[in-house]
Each structure stands twice: as structure tokens, then as C-alpha cells.
């Protein structure tokens, strides 16, 4: 096979997973503008509609945090500290701009710190309400409008409703393809491992949506034709919690003798599950998808009061009902709750989500780590013990 031939499918995924920026660097060379963003609230459709390349920033749990220690305290989310650390170490020379959103306390603070110490031609901070009240949706729509305006003045181009709808369609295509890929995990054993899926998700976050869709199609075809299936395991697990952008943890889980068949994290279902509805005014659909559609504990949801007042179980159903579909659809028999240390939005959630899983009769275990490889190793025993509990 000639060396020159470009790699496709999973091998391409592995390339992109190993060296995330390689593609945007090329595109940058071709004169495209690259906009970095953190977390999943910045509206990627807007960037796509302006031919900008959205590039999602992650941390690096293999790289010790040093520079960021000078401007972020040790008692905040190590994932965010790591992300800033990489920026301070000038790992993103190819960025033309940066978009951050009010994702959580530290995310909000860090946006301003980032902006102070690392300068880009373009920077936008997007406020995101915490409630899903009607008034919050209206306000958020206006906020997105503001983001659109700022992007337009940065590029000197206008986003026509048609262009925006186009962008929405391609991104929805990607969401549909991701769900198609996830369907391949429903079989027992799953056709694709959790580790591979995560690599795909990470790869997607670093390339233009169109290329991502091509890549997904290749991967899906490859997987469908797979001869050797991943080993059949007793445990079919769902992994819940804060961001996972490195395969280490999933590898530990799968090496311990389990299949990771579903996830509820923001490099997975949270970032791809819900679509943007094509509303007459596209912004309505976008606002709704990002505020209500994305299921992250940073947003407050509560069941409507019934005549007797408030009902905890109804509340749990309203907050976590989507997990039931995951569990049933993917035939999950155990859940691993994991979070980086100092993540408040996930921390407060843990007892409630366990209450809900118990109501479904699903065993779960909660693991906390400080987003460094060394902090993952000790989790092995807990994971193995959990699998022994599952029997």
C-alpha cells in the first residue's frame, strides 16, 4: 500500500486523536480562520455559517499543570486549569479567536483570566442563563444574537438566514450520524468499544463539521463490516459525569472486563444527542437546543409543581429521565459516575442521580479524580470491585 494514500475511518480517527491540531493547522495554512471554544455552549452553527473552523479546546491530563498555577488556584477544576495551562504554554498559535461561555463559576472566571493573559484578534464571552424559564430562553436568544453580531463584525460578513439554516442542517447531520454510530453499541457485545467511540468524539471536535460527517460515514461503514467483535463482557456500562477527553479512564474500565456501551458526558451524547429544530427564526431553535436540549447539570431544571406541591421523584424523572432511555436502549446494567475533583455542578448532582438510578434498580459507583493519569490508576480497584458487585 503506497504510503501517500490518505488514511480513512478509524485509522484517520486515531491520527486525529493523537495529533488534534494537525487538520486545523492545514486549514489555517489555506487561509481559513480558526476559532477556539471551550465546553459545548458556544454556538458552533454560527461559526460554520461564516466558514470559520470551530476548534474545541480540551486539557491534557498527561501534562503537569505549571503555568496556570500562577493565575488559577489549586482548588478549582483541574480540567479547566489544564486547558488554560496549555494556552499559557502557547499550544494554540493557530487560533484567530476564542469563544467562551458562562458554563460554570470557574469557566466564567477563567474566560476573563484567559482573555487577559492570552490575546487573540477575536474574543467573545457568551452569557448563558441557568434556568429554562421562558424569559431565560428569550434572553439567551438575544445573547446568541449578540454573539452573531460580533462574529459578523469580526469577519465582515453577514449570516443570512439561509446560510444559518444550512449550517444547522450539516450539524444536525453530524448529530444523526453520531446517534447511528452509537446504535452500533447496542449489540452484545458492542461492535465498537467505548475507547474507540471516545476517540471518534475527540477527533470530531477538531475538524470542520463537513469533514467530520465524512469521517463518521467511513467509520460507520468500517464498523458494520467488522469481523472481530470486541470481547463479550458481563457488564454493559454507562459512564456519566464531567468531561472526558482522554481514553485512559475508559481503557481502565474496559480492561477491567466491562463494555462501555453508553455515556452521559460532553464528549459524547451531551454534545451530540439533541438536534437544533429548524424554526422559522433559526435562533429560536438554536436557543432552545443549547439551553434546554443540552443536558448538563450546570442548568437548573425542575418538574412543574403538582397540586400537592413538589415531588422529588417527579423532579428526578424530569432531570434524569433521558438516562432511562439510554439504559433501556443500550441494555445497560451498571453505571459509573465520575467527576473531576472540585466540579461543583456535578458534585451536587451525585446523590440525586444515584437516587434516580436506584429507582431504576441500577447499581452505580462514584469515582472522583484530579484529571491526571496518576490519579486514575488507583481507581482500578474500585472499578474491578464494582464489576464484582455486578457479578
Amino acid at each position, binding site marked *: 500500500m503506497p504510503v501517500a494514500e490518505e488514511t480513512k475511518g478509524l485509522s484517520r480517527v486515531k491520527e486525529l486523536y493523537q495529533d488534534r491540531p494537525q487538520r486545523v493547522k492545514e486549514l489555517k495554512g489555506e487561509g481559513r480562520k480558526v476559532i477556539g471554544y471551550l465546553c459545548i455552549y458556544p454556538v458552533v452553527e454560527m461559526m460554520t455559517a461564516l466558514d470559520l473552523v470551530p476548534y474545541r479546546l480540551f486539557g491534557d491530563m498527561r501534562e503537569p499543570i505549571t503555568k496556570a498555577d500562577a493565575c488559577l488556584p489549586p482548588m478549582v477544576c483541574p480540567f479547566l486549569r489544564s486547558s488554560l495551562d496549555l494556552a499559557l504554554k502557547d499550544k494554540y498559535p493557530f487560533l484567530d479567536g476564542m469563544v467562551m461561555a458562562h458554563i460554570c463559576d470557574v469557566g466564567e472566571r477563567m474566560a476573563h483570566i484567559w482573555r487577559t493573559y492570552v490575546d487573540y484578534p477575536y474574543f467573545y464571552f457568551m452569557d448563558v442563563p441557568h434556568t429554562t424559564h421562558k424569559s431565560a430562553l428569550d434572553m439567551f436568544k438575544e445573547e446568541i444574537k449578540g454573539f452573531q453580531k460580533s462574529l459578523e463584525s469580526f469577519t465582515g460578513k453577514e449570516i443570512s438566514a439561509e446560510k444559518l439554516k444550512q449550517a444547522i442542517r450539516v450539524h444536525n447531520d453530524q448529530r444523526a450520524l453520531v446517534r447511528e454510530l452509537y446504535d452500533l453499541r447496542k449489540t452484545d457485545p458492542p461492535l465498537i468499544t467505548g475507547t474507540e467511540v471516545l476517540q471518534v468524539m475527540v477527533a470530531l471536535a477538531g475538524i470542520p463539521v463537513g469533514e467530520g460527517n465524512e469521517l463518521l460515514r467511513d467509520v460507520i461503514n468500517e464498523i458494520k463490516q467488522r469481523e472481530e467483535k470486541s470481547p463479550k463482557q458481563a457488564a454493559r456500562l454507562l459512564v456519566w459525569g464531567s468531561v472526558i477527553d482522554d481514553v485512559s479512564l475508559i481503557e481502565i474500565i474496559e480492561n477491567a472486563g466491562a463494555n462501555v456501551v453508553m455515556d452521559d458526558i460532553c464528549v459524547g451524547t451531551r454534545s451530540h444527542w439533541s438536534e437544533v429544530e429548524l424554526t422559522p427564526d433559526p435562533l429560536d431553535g438554536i436557543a432552545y437546543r443549547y439551553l434546554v436540549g443540552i443536558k448538563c447539570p450546570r442548568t437548573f431544571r425542575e418538574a412543574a409543581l403538582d397540586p400537592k406541591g413538589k415531588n422529588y421523584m417527579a423532579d428526578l424523572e424530569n432531570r434524569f429521565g433521558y438516562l432511562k432511555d439510554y439504559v433501556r436502549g443500550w441494555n445497560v446494567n451498571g453505571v459509573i459516575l465520575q467527576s473531576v475533583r472540585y466540579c461543583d455542578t456535578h458534585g*451536587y448532582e451525585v446523590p440525586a442521580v444515584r437516587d434516580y438510578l436506584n429507582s431504576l434498580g441500577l447499581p452505580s459507583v462514584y469515582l472522583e479524580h484530579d484529571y491526571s493519569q496518576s490519579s486514575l490508576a488507583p481507581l482500578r480497584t474500585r472499578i474491578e470491585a464494582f464489576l464484582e458487585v455486578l457479578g
Partner: protein
Amino acid sequence: MVQEKKRAINRLQTMRPIRAEIDETYKANVEASKAGNPIAWAMLTIWLGDAIFHAMDIGATYPESYGAVCAASGAAQSYLDRSDEEGFPTHMCGYARNCIGYAARMMKDCGGEIPPEAPMGGMPKPAVLLSRGMSCDAGFKWFQALARYMDTPMWTLEMPIPGVKEGLSEEVRERNVAFMTKELRDFVSFMESVFGRKMDWDKLSQTVQDLEAIGRVWYETSELRKAIPCPMHSRDFWTCMSGPSTPTGDLKKKLKLYQDLYEEVKDRVENKVSAVVQEKYRVGFTELPPWHSLKLFDTLAERGWNFVVETWGYHPAVPIDLTGVNDPLERLARISYSGLTTSCFQGAAQAGEYMGFLGYPNLKYAEEYKLDGFFLHPLLSCRAASAHLWYVQDRLMQKLKVPSLMVEGDIVDVRMFDLADALKKAEAFEEIMDHYKEVRKKEGMEW
């Protein structure tokens, strides 16, 4: 009358009735709930929701403030432990863990009654929970978590927090104020449906007026603290700070109490009376103090440390012109939006500061209050009050050559605070303050 020995901190006499008044509200709430009147547990929303409770005759109690009470009285530890047992991660907000532990104890062990050991008479079982989407994630996640223990209706009040640059335009301001006003209106109808009472709009207008009056006096008082020597120590400020932001009790009476406070402080300024024996260092405090170890400030006062200003969240809102704004809800929205977040944005933008209300005010106070240094108190259990402090330390030094002392601790959990270590660092910090006083002089700064 308690005859107390001469302390290094010269406390204000007019502070005591205010403290009594604030303590009184705890008892009042307990009695009210015994009498069958609903009591709300509310996060501090800096006026937003509080006025509405008051106008609807619903007593409000503040688990954040109560966290400080439990910490000061030593009762907190058992509630923190209880929260651990309930499965909440230990790195979470000390106030929240204290409250969650308290709720678990009240609902699971005491059948909904106030736990016997609860300090200050305790917080009665709430009829409604008001949380907030501003200033910290705990602000709503914590009350949401309470649903495990009580089927109490809950509302979350939203507060937009734009970036400095993004938030400058009038368009954004008006949009956000309109949003907040709408939020408040929805909250009122929520309350009306939960309690089956109608809002008394006249009373609300009156309440808001009274609050504005108290707020103005409170603001004027804090302006007086710019005097050298500073007449009012942070200890007194902390004792009184919840009054103006929480409209409990008789507001007319409250107004009088704060006017008396103003008069005493003003009198001290005229007679150059200092809040500490001898003001050697003027220090600002950021963010929340170690409620369990307040003796720290007495020891520092003996060394000539005067604490003269505190951070944004507690700093009285700058009064704004509201002529022509008749809707009391809109008035609340404007005061809160300006006071809590954006009033400093103009200055921040000019100074090229992106850390709007959390960063820039420290620079501003350093200049206005002629600070020798800042005491930064990062909380091991609170991201919201800590994430920006390293940055603040850097900006203060870069821009104003004002040094800051960083002492880690916690608002509630005494195990995380090392008094001896703090004092050791403070001693060394005095040399640093002396040094930068010289540096500022060399660079032609005025203090």
C-alpha cells in the same frame, strides 16, 4: 449591659442594636412558623427576591448567613459531617454542606422540627426555597439538592452576568434589566400560586423605597471609611452587612438604626477616631472571612492592621438615578443589576480589566481607600470566591504595586484554617507592605 474589656478593635456602639435586630429575625421567624406563617429559605439575592417576601408577609431566613452563625458557634462540624454521610463530595461549599447536613438532620431525625442543638433558635422548615442563578453555582445546585429532604417548592431567580466588553452597551443593559423584571414578575405569580395570596403592590413599592433609603445610608457610611484613620473596622461591617440587603423586620426602625450608625461613624471621622488602636496598615479584605477564627482580626488590630473595605458582593451598591422608573420590580432589577455586576464595567473597560465585578473593584478600592495591602482568603470549598484571587493578586501588584497576602482557609470548616500560620505570614507581610509603600512613593502614587 455587658462590661467588656478594652479590645484592640474599637467597635461601634451603634452596631450592637443592629446586631440584636438581625439576631432577632431568627427568633421572629421561629415564632412566625410556630404560629403557622410560612417561612422562606432564601439565597442572598441582593434585594431581588427579598423585597417580594417582605411585601407578601413571608418571613425569610438565609442559610448562607446561618452557615456563618453555625461556624461561629461551632455547631457547623456535625452538619458538615452529616452532609458527608449523605454522600455529598467534601470539597463543596461549606455553607451548602452545613445547610444540607442541617436539612437532613431536621427532616430525617427530628421529624421536620428544628434540631435541638441548632444555634440562634435554628431555621424553621421552609415553605418555599428561593435560589439564584447568579454569583455561584452553589446558588441553585445546593437548594436543588435539598429536594432529597423536603418537598418544598423552589424558584431560581436569574441574573445575567455579561462580560465587561459585552455588557457595556445600553442595548444589552436594557435587555437584561427587562429580562430580570420579567423574571421577578414570574416569581411573584409563582409565589401567589404557591401561597394563594395576592401581592400587595403598594406595600412592595413602599418596601423598595425603604430599602433604597437604607441602602443609601449604608453606602454613605462605607464612603466615610475612606477617611484616614478609618473609623469603621470590617468586623463592624460584617456584623451589619446583611441588614441592608435583607428586608426583614420593621424597615423604618432599621433605617433609623443605620442612620445612627452613620452618625457615629461620621462623628468618628470628624474627631479622627480610628477603628484600631493605632492605624499602621490599611487593609482590604477579599472575599469571605473565616467566621470560626475572627480573633485573627483582633490580633492583627494589635499590630496596627485596620481593615477598611471589603469586596464587591458585600460592598454597598452605588445608588443610581431611578427617576421615572415606577414599577417596583424594575427598580429592584436595575439596582441589583447595577449594584451587583455592571456598575463597575465602565471603569473596568477603561482600565482594560476583563474581570469585571470580581477583579476591577479591588483595584478601585485600593486607590480610593488608600490601601497598603489586601488580605486574600481563598476558600478551599468555594470556587466562586477563590478562582479569581490569584489573578487579583497579580493585577494589584502589576498595576498599583499593592501587595496582597494569600491565606487559604474556609468560611465554615475550621479544620482548613491554620491561625498560627496565618499570623506568621501576616508578620512577614508587614515588611512587604512597608516596602511597597516606598515603591509607590517612588513611582509618584499618592498613597
